[in-house]
Structure formats: C-alpha cells, structure tokens
C-alpha cells in the first residue's frame, strides 16, 4: 500500500514537472522585483503581460490557482503531499504564483474554518477565478496594538447592518472589490466580545478610501471609511459577536507569514557588500567597529536560520512546543531592521540618497525607512515580548 502511494506520488511529480515545463511561459519563471508585477485579479484587474494572462488561464484551467482547496470551491483538490510536490516543482523551475489575492491567503483559511457552506460556495470560487480582489480591515486609527478596542460599529437594522467607522492599514483597499472586516456588533459587552466578522462590498454607498503615505514614500496601505454603509445580514461570517475567535485565528496566521518573510527571501550577505564598497587594511575592513558589527549580525542571521530549521524539524517530528516560533516575528524583523542600519553605514553617503537616478529613486534609503515599520506591523515588538513573557514563560500579571 505504501509503495502504491509512493509510486502515485512519483508519477504525480513527473507529470507535474512535465506540465509546468510545457506550460509555464519563460517570463513567468523570472523572479519579480515588485508586487506590481504580480496578478492580483479583481473587477478592474489587468494583466501586465500576455504571458501573465496565459499563465493564469492555464493554471486556472488546471485548477491549480489554489490547488489545495476542494474542487467544489474552485480548488484543485490536491492532497497535502501532492500540493507539496507541486510547490517544490514550481520553485524548482522558479514559476511565479499565477494569482495573488488576500482572498486566498487570508480570507480563505478563515472562511473554510468559520463560514457556512453557502458562503463558501458563493465566495471562494470567485476568488479562485480572480473575479474578486479582497482586502482586510482589522486595525483602527485609535486601536493600535490594542486591536480588540475597535470602534467601527455595525448596528442591527433588521435585515441589514448599518456600518459606521474607519479602518487603517487596509492594504490595497483602493484596488480591492470587497473587504473582510472586524466590526463591533455589541458595545455593551466586554472588549473582546461583541465583535463580528463581516464581508463588505467596497462598491457599497458610503465606502471610501484614502491612501497612506509612509516615511518610505508611497505604500499599498489605505485608510478605509464607512459612512452609514448598509451590509446584508447574509454577509456575517461565523457567529454574531464571536468574531474575535476568527480574528485571533487570522492574526496567528498573519504573524507566521510576517515572521517567515526573512526565510524565503534570497539574502544578500552584507559582508560581501562591505568587501565591495569599503576600504581594507591588512586584509580586514578599515572600519573595524563596523566589521565586528557585521560579523555579529551575520552570526545571528545564520543562527536564526538554524533556529527556524530546528523548529521545522521539531514540528515534523511532532516534538515542537511552539515556544521558539513565538520569537520568530520579533527576531526576524529585528534582523531585517539591523541589516538595513548596517547597509546604511556600509554604503555611506550614497545610501541616504532619496531622489537621484544613481540611487534608483532612493531605493536603499526607502527600504531602510520601510523596515522601521516591521517592528510595528503584525504585532509590535512590545506585544511580542508580552506574549512570550506571559504565554511561554508564564510570568504573572499584576
């Protein structure tokens, strides 16, 4: 039996490899430099190239846009093993994902777990087909780290909710068709109860957005305003007033994604950059202080990678306490921040250029500025440390 499965998987791998080689356009095997090179779908979604369109359509036909969802929801119905093989083969060839959509990465998991069957059948296939682009609305201007302190109100008006309030950090809200939101449906109860999870059509009357400019310049973030927006009752996902359960589920999901960022990026060795740019003396960098900081940084970077590996190996063997991974968001973003601080020093005057050709319009400086948000978004450093202190170390609250 085990042999049979293995043979099937091996065949699947061979077939997949061949199909990808035959069907993935060469330009879709190049790494992307910018999220704008990806296909995000949506009512106004446009393909940036014929190859991109071709690739999306072929994968859609193959049912591999979201290969691991059930077929009835528009997925490919692949087993975990098959899905892993497909991922491996795609990265072997360097194939881009054919479609990016927060509906796939964020809303999907939540709906599969909390939505009713009708909702799943209604929304998920549209996501797969690239018809609807989703964005998320959790944070609010006055809530900050205290997410549960949200004020956007959804009043029960019989057959609809009347939504009023605003959301912040809603990525790509300008371009999205629908938004999944946390709203307050009961203000009388405690902070964590009385929250519900609602789906809102951005085309509804009273919805507007405003882009947020960051210290690094333009960003995909928006503020989204709800001015007496009518939302059908059917758009409620999960139990009324129990949306915090869904929020926690999604936050854990998001935190893992952010923490994992450093893992998938091809990392530049900053010591190589230093060797290229900086002067040496007797074979060692003349700026010996920077040298030691680079050495310390690369030590921590390498050991952090080992720690991610160790944790994954523990997970595989079923021995993972989850303790180490709670630190990943903190440490991964911290390394990212430190790396850019060091690169600024390595590249000297040229690193702070902001608006010059040579600097590609301040690429390095803007990325440096952008990293300062890493320790804030997806749970601040301080919140992460609180979590470790309380949940992992079991230190008492007052």
């Amino acid at each position: 039996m085990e042999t049979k499965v293995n043979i099937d998987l091996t065949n699947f791998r061979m077939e997949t490899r061949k199909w990808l080689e035959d069907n993935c356009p060469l330009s879709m095997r190049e790494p992307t430099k910018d999220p704008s090179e990806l296909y995000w779908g949506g009512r106004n979604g446009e393909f940036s190239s014929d190859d991109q369109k071709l690739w999306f359509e072929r994968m859609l036909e193959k049912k591999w846009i979201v290969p691991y969802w059930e077929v009835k929801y528009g997925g490919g119905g692949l087993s975990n093993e098959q899905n892993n093989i497909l991922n491996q083969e795609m990265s072997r060839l360097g194939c881009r994902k054919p479609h990016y959509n927060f509906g796939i990465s964020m809303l999907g998991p939540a709906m599969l777990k909390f939505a009713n069957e009708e909702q799943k059948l209604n929304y998920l296939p549209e996501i797969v087909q690239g018809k609807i682009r989703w964005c998320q609305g959790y944070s609010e201007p006055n809530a900050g780290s205290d997410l549960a302190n949200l004020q956007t109100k959804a009043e029960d008006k019989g057959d609809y909710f009347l939504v009023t309030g605003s959301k912040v950090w809603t990525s790509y809200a300008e371009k999205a068709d629908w938004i999944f939101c946390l709203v307050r449906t009961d203000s009388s109860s405690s902070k964590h109860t009385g929250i519900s999870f609602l789906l809102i059509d951005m085309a509804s009357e009273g919805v507007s957005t405003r882009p947020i400019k960051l210290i690094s310049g333009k960003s995909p973030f928006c503020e989204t305003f709800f001015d007496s927006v009518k939302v059908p009752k059917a758009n409620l996902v999960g139990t009324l007033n129990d949306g915090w359960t869904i929020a926690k589920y999604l936050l854990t999901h998001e935190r893992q994604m952010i923490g994992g960022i450093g893992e998938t990026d091809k990392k530049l060795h900053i010591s190589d950059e230093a060797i290229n740019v900086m002067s040496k003396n007797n074979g060692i960098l003349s700026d010996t202080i920077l040298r030691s900081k680079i050495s310390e940084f690369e030590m921590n970077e390498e050991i952090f990678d080992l720690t991610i590996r160790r944790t994954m190996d523990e997970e595989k063997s079923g021995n993972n306490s989850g303790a180490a991974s709670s630190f990943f968001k903190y440490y991964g973003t911290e390394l990212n921040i430190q790396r850019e601080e060091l690169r600024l020093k390595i590249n000297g005057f040229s690193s702070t250029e902001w608006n010059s050709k040579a600097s590609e319009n301040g690429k390095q400086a803007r990325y440096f500025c952008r990293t300062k948000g890493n320790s804030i978004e997806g749970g601040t450093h301080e919140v992460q440390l609180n979590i470790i202190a309380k949940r992992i170390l079991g230190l008492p609250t007052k």
Partner: protein
Amino acid sequence: MALLINEEQQMLKESTKEFLDLKSPISSMRKLRDNNFQTYNEELWMEMVEMGWTALTIPEKYNGLNFGYVGLGQVLEEMGRKLTISPIISTVLMSTTLISLSKNEILKSNLFKEIMNGTKLSTVAHDEGVHHNPEILNSLISKEGDFFVLNGKKNFVIDGSISDYLIVTANNESGSNVLICVVDSKSTGVEYNNKVHMDSRTYSDITFNNVKIKNDNFLSFEGDGKLILEKTLDITRIGLAAEMLGNIQEAFEITVNYLKEREQFGVKIGSFQALQHRCALMFGEIELCKSIVLKALQAIDSNDSSLSKYSSLAKAKLGSILQLVSNEAVQMHGGIGVTDDADIGFFLKRARVVQSMLGDSNFHLDKLAKIKNY
C-alpha cells in the same frame, strides 16, 4: 570656565527659539520638501542674516559680532529642534570657520563682508568618496602659466548647488601641502551632480576639470592647509553635534508627550514600565549629550588644546544617541510613527544623514583611540 551658558548666550537661545517657533516650525521644512525639494527659503535666510546669525562667529575686526561658538551652538541646537533647512551649516559653520583660520587678509575680509550681509553663500568641499575620510585627497592643483589649475572630484558637498563660493581642498603638485582655494561656483570646468538626500536637503558631487584659480584666491598656500582643514572639520563636527542635540531633545520630548496622551488597553501607554525604563535611559543619555556639546563648544571659544578630542567625543556620542532616540521615537509612536503624516519620521531621516556627515560614531571612536595611542 563653568560648564554653563552665560546670560547673553541664554538670551540668544531664547530669541532664536521665538524666531523659529514663528518663522520655521517643522511644517516649513515639510513645505520645502513638498515643493519639489526646494533647497532653502531665501526670505527666511535673509531674516536670519538680519538677526545677525551670519556674523555671530566673525571677529570684531571684520565687523562681526564675535559672539563665539557657544552662541552659534545655541542657534544650531534650536534649528535642530525645528529641523530648519538653511545654508547656516555650509556658510556660517563651515566656511566662516575655515576663512577665519586663513592668513589671506584681503580675501578673508571680502568673503566675510559678503557672507555677513547675506549676498553670498559658501561651502567647503573636501570629502572624496562615500565615507568621510580626511586622509583621502586626490584633487590636485597645478601651476599653469600665470594661473593655477584645479582638477578633482568632491562628494557630498553640503549646499553645493546653491553656494556662490566653493572652498576646495587639493594637494599641491609635490603632494607636500594641502592647498585650500576659493572657487567661484560659475567657473568654467565646474560640474554639478545634485542629489536630494533622505533629509530632503540637497548635496552635490562636484567635478573640477581644469578650473582656473587666481593667485589671490588661496585661503591656504603656505603649508598650514592641513591644520586649517583639521580644525575646520573639528569645529564643524561640534556645530553638527549642537544641531543633533536639538534633534534629539525635540524627538524625545515629542515622544514622551505622545506616551502621556496615547491610550492602549485602557491606559496611557506611557504607564507601561518597559517603555518607562527605555525613556529613563534615554533621558540620562541626553543629559550626557548636553554636557559634551557645551564642553566642546567652550573648547572652541577658549582655544582648548584638546579641541580635537572634544570634537570626536561630541560627534561620537551624539551620533550614537541620535541613532537610539530617532529609532525609539518612531517605534514608540507605533503605526502613526511610520506614516508621512507624522513629523517624527523627519527626525529619523535627518538623523542618518547628519550622523554620517564628517564621520560617524565608529569613525570618531576610532579617532579617540588613536588620540590615546591604542
């Protein structure tokens, strides 16, 4: 000398603060930036000239105010608080200092007059390469007939794009002397590559191709060039440290006030002990910063033989604390801190530029060790 500012200096500080509160709040800097990175506000500059700021450190002999560097330091500190963009660093702090040290009395007296009345701007061009290093000097001045000719390439020249005069360092032909000459910015053979940096200020890479220099346009010709250059750098670093002290204090105060107002989890975030301790540590470091900046400014005015040491102490310490405070300020503001709507990010952006200017903390810690011979 007591480690205090005197009454006159205190009055200058207060009048500067009043002036800047009115004429140059942080929003002015934002306006210049949003106006396609305007290099400076000429009207504001002429008002500064009228206030006498261009004459502050010029000796009475040349009709200056002879107010000294402790005085100039107070002005720079207040400007640091407002992130004011103006040619004061290039023209007053750097150029005037260098000119003061020259023995070319005619040139000196002419330049001082034009700087004081605000008709001319000036800057010093020394660095070659992307890291500050006074030792690196490849520019060359050679004799050609009746003239001298300058060839070379200078990087990161502060206010290079708006300066009327470029004070340029170069080697003489034998490499035995550092020469310092004044170049009219419109001279034939001067080429600019202007770059706006993260702090919304413009810096220039300038190439000199066979630029003619007249005999009487040398501020140093007789072998004192290296000394003049080094002292100018030391003094400028101290002035930058004074400006950084303003940056640090303002960013810290804005942040502490934010912590007292902003609520999370039903309490003021300033009540969280982890943030309190980080603030308390910064508070102490800032007290240290105040001391070294004042001591270093006094060292200029009193012609202290340890000027170079105090200069490096000031630039090293202020650089590292500005790094700390500018990062903590943004972090403690949370999400709002990384938006362009908030002013706090401007401090971060100015910080990294001014930190690297004329040597970062690493450079000066290394220099301090060398001074003590280890």
